[in-house]
């Protein structure tokens, strides 16, 4: 009794310790959350301020009312009597940053690559898992072997090759190579190995299904979860792929969102802070929104060991 008074109930003590620990962890997590969110918040806030406001007070913390105005400059939709300087700024930004076209191009590239990557990776993985052929293990070893080769090591040759094929300023060098995605095949392969019932293929054969049809109508539905996870990562990766896109696309009709952002970053004259932030926000916000909508799915995918670019 006296000991309990002196030291407190062991259970209380234990609880107190956990409480303290939990509080510390909570505080750290909140701080990290702020580190992750504040830049995005400031980005959106600053996109709603004019250049003048930002030049006078760059540390704006609350929303302003100039989002529409900045958007008008960005789309070169300003009044004729706005003054030469502003008209010049508007023409400069709108000439480089055409957000509609950027989204469309990025969507075409990311969409097509995703479909190709997922379909052909599933096909290849399925071929390796279901069929027994002489070069099977050699092919698989090859795919694992090349999985880690960075894209940079072949890019000098890639660009020269594309020049010689006259495929610069063409989506083909950005889309068609997506058919060959070793890392995606690797993950599809391991997921097929562990979950796919081979017997079902036999059953389909007995039913008179052709091999390709079996893959399309029997195997693919079973592979949907794995394919969906890979599709998300393939989409994100290709949407964000500044390096290859910037090598291949030189022509303004082909600009994608990351290239447009990098071009805006290069302006050395007539910089407009508000519009700068707006450009970046337009490239960031849609991704964040889609991410939040799919976050559970994505995080489960990462936990599977999905991606490491």
């Amino acid at each position, binding site marked *: 009794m006296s000991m309990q008074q002196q030291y407190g109930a062991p259970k209380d003590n234990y609880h107190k310790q956990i409480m303290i*620990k*939990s509080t510390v*962890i909570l505080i750290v997590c909140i701080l990290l*959350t702020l580190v*992750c969110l504040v*830049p995005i918040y400031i980005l959106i806030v*600053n996109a709603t301020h004019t250049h003048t406001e930002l*030049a006078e007070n*760059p540390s704006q913390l609350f929303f302003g009312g100039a989002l529409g105005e900045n958007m008008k400059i960005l789309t070169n939709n300003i009044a004729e009597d706005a003054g030469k300087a502003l008209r010049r700024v508007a023409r400069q930004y709108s000439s480089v940053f055409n957000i509609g076209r950027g989204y469309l191009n990025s969507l075409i590239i990311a969409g097509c690559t995703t479909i190709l990557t997922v379909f*052909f*990776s599933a096909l290849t993985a399925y*071929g390796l898992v279901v*069929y027994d*052929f002489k*070069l099977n293990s050699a*092919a698989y070893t090859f795919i694992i*072997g090349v999985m*880690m080769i*960075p*894209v*940079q*090591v*072949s*890019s*000098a*040759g*890639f660009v*020269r*090759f594309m020049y010689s094929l006259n495929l610069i300023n063409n989506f083909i*060098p950005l889309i068609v*190579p997506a*058919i*060959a995605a070793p890392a995606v095949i690797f993950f599809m392969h391991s997921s097929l190995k562990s979950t796919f019932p*081979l*017997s079902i293929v*036999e059953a389909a054969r*007995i039913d008179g299904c052709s*091999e*390709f049809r079996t893959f399309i109508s029997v195997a693919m539905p079973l592979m949907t979860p794995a394919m969906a996870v890979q599709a998300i990562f393939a989409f994100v990766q290709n949407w964000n792929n*500044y*390096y290859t896109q910037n*090598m291949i696309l030189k022509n303004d009709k082909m600009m994608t*969102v*990351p*290239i447009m952002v*990098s071009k*805006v*970053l290069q302006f050395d004259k007539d910089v407009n*802070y508000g519009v*700068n932030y707006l*450009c*970046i926000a337009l*490239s*960031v916000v849609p991704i*964040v929104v889609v991410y*939040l909508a799919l976050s*559970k799915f*994505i995080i489960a995918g990462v936990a599977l060991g999905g991606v*490491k*670019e």
Partner: protein
Amino acid sequence: MASAAQSRIKSISYAKYGYMFIAPFFLVYCFFQIWPLIYTFILSFKGNQSNYDSFVGLDNYTTILFGQGMAAGAAATKAEFLQALGNTFVLWFGNFVPQILLSLLLAVWFTDAKVKLPGKGFFKVVMYMPNIITAASVAALYVNLFGDSEYYFVNSLLMNAGMADPIHFVTDPTISKIMVMFIQTWLWFGNTMIMLMSGIMGISPSLFEAADIDGANSTQQFFNITLPLLQPIMVYTLVTSMIGGLQMFDLPYLFHNGAQFSRSLETVAVYIYYNFNKGTVEQASYGYAGAASIIIFGITAILGSVTFYVNRDQDAAAKKKQRKLAEKQQKARAKQGGGLTI
């Protein structure tokens, strides 16, 4: 007996489908990856700029590695390449260490059943979020937030708080490196954390329970159970991160405004890109770019085989397990007569 016959039939009549199914991958891979790689290899033996079409043997390699070559700037080229290699390592190391420590700490906290943390799911979602954002936009965002003068967000805030001179976050050679490390960590810690979490959750809970009963505190548990059992996944993270580090491009390249690049953030990937992406073929240095690429390829190959050997044991174990499973399935199928019930 039936299964043996079946598999023989399968191997005879269906093998060609195997080749057909994997053919698109190999065709495309050879065309868009293998040939460019060979071509890069060829380019590495050819000259630069006006000399682009002639064969120069190992000149590009001796130039960028030892500073001995035909060009008057051979020594300077070597210095630049080695600096780029050094920068790559420094930038990688400077983001990997804090990233892995932070991720490990968070992963342990998040998987600790005794800790009562509200909104765990929310934290995970937010911490992974930076990883999903376009690196080009991230670079642009940070350049605009951390600009060099008082006309940018962070410096303005600091100077309002009483700091006298603005910090040159973007252009100072040392501070800009730290910035890139920070942003890189910001981008990747959520990803690493979730990977490590799934690794920790794979550890049998009975080990922790037993340790609890034996009176081990959480620090002891971490060093004696979690860390040793996480080793394979840690090695995997380390190697993939090193290979990722060798490719580091968008952030260091765009952080210094693209064209007006600076040596202090020049990584190997930037070096390669900068040399082959300079206008016409007569303005570009394909030879140096090629030689640097092949050197990076060599380094990657070494790192890749390290992971391969580390993961081999696990793979072998997994294969054994899968083989057993397959046998079981076959048996079951044989019993059911075709597995139509699935």
